[in-house]
């Protein structure tokens, strides 16, 4: 296989590695992969955690390594990339669609800085209404906030915007 073919195969393999807390999103959807390269020792994948205290980082790293190593039959090294920092604008358009279908509102796109106002009137993933309010900036996982929809009377979670 040429180097380009290997790298394409790695990306195809990464499509199988899901986030354990939001099992409809892959590590690629989340923008967690910053580099894939072929080295003398095998394949080097650099990734970034979404939150500093994400308890799933080690688990995700192991999943990436074992899935790609299995699919390609090559040794794989996974490193945390300290030079790139994760922010919610890294979520792909498809990722946001998958989130909404899963019942979680997507993060608003921000311009590098998150202000409280950006989270007002987050569209409800159940009924689409923007008659909603932020109930708490913290939810069931570090990446989620809790909102309430006045139109359909449902509480819902949002993947919150992070700068």
């Amino acid at each position, binding site marked *: 296989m040429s180097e380009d073919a290997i790298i394409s195969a790695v990306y195809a393999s990464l499509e199988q590695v899901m986030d354990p807390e939001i099992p409809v999103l892959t590590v690629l959807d989340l923008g967690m992969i910053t580099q894939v390269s072929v080295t003398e020792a095998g394949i080097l994948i650099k990734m970034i955690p979404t*939150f*500093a*205290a*994400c*308890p799933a980082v080690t688990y995700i790293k192991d999943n990436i390594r074992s899935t790609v190593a299995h699919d390609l039959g090559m040794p794989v090294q996974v490193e945390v990339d*300290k*030079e790139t*920092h*994760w*922010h919610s604008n890294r979520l792909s358009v498809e990722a946001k669609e998958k989130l909404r279908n899963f019942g979680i509102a997507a993060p608003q796109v921000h311009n590098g800085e*998150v202000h*409280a106002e950006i989270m007002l009137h987050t569209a409800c993933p159940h009924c689409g209404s923007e008659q909603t309010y932020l*109930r*708490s*900036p*913290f*939810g*069931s996982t*570090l990446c989620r*906030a*809790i909102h309430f929809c006045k139109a359909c009377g449902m509480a819902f979670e949002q993947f*919150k915007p*992070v*700068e």
Partner: protein
Amino acid sequence: MTTSLNTDIAVTDLITKMADDELIIGHRNSEWTGLGPVMEEDIAFSSMAQDKIGHALALYTILHEQLQGADPDQFAFMREASAFKCCHLVELPIGDYDFSLMRHFLFDHAEAVRYRHLLQSSYTPLKQLSQKVKGELKYHTLHANAWLLQLCRAGADSHARMQAALDTCFPLACGIFEPAADEVEALLIAEAIYPGEEVLYNEWLDQIYPILAQAGLNLPDVAQVRPAYGGRGGQHTKWLVPMLNEMGAVFRLDPQASW
């Protein structure tokens, strides 16, 4: 190479005090798990606890990987209280909700100011980490501001309790900005690693004042306040030792265990 050695010692001092603050307040925040006054607050304090302990781990990891520090778990759980450099504010028990909320408000704004400055740090590991921490802290200050304003507008009794909490917490919070030894402080400023505690303290006052005013709270007379110093030099309140004993109890059953 003497200069470089001194810089390493100074940076180690700075990172250790920041990390110890994060670890101890993180543990205190976690004591609200299951006890929050409403479910959302239970979740909020638990989430903030997780963030703080994550930030502590990231800082201890810098010490370990860049500055010949001990393994982060060993460093967090096996040290004597006198080797901790946390400020007194973070050591106190959670008390009533008004106290915990005021501590959270004062502490998180102080951190926001600190990490904002560290974005310009000449010390690359701190600069890289602060971008991440700063974004996460946004939600801590957002949470603190919202509850502070809400409780201060919830009637005379509620307002009075928040004022009392501010009066109690303020001298303790000033202790966050206890400067290091003169030569350490001067070196860190000269090397553009951080701007020094005095700059951070003044900026923190500028940042909290408008929010306190909006909440109708009176800031204690800053000139008369005696800041609770001592923590950075290893002198702690009576609350730290029992907390460390509890926090490290499981780890110390088998310090070599693989988690």
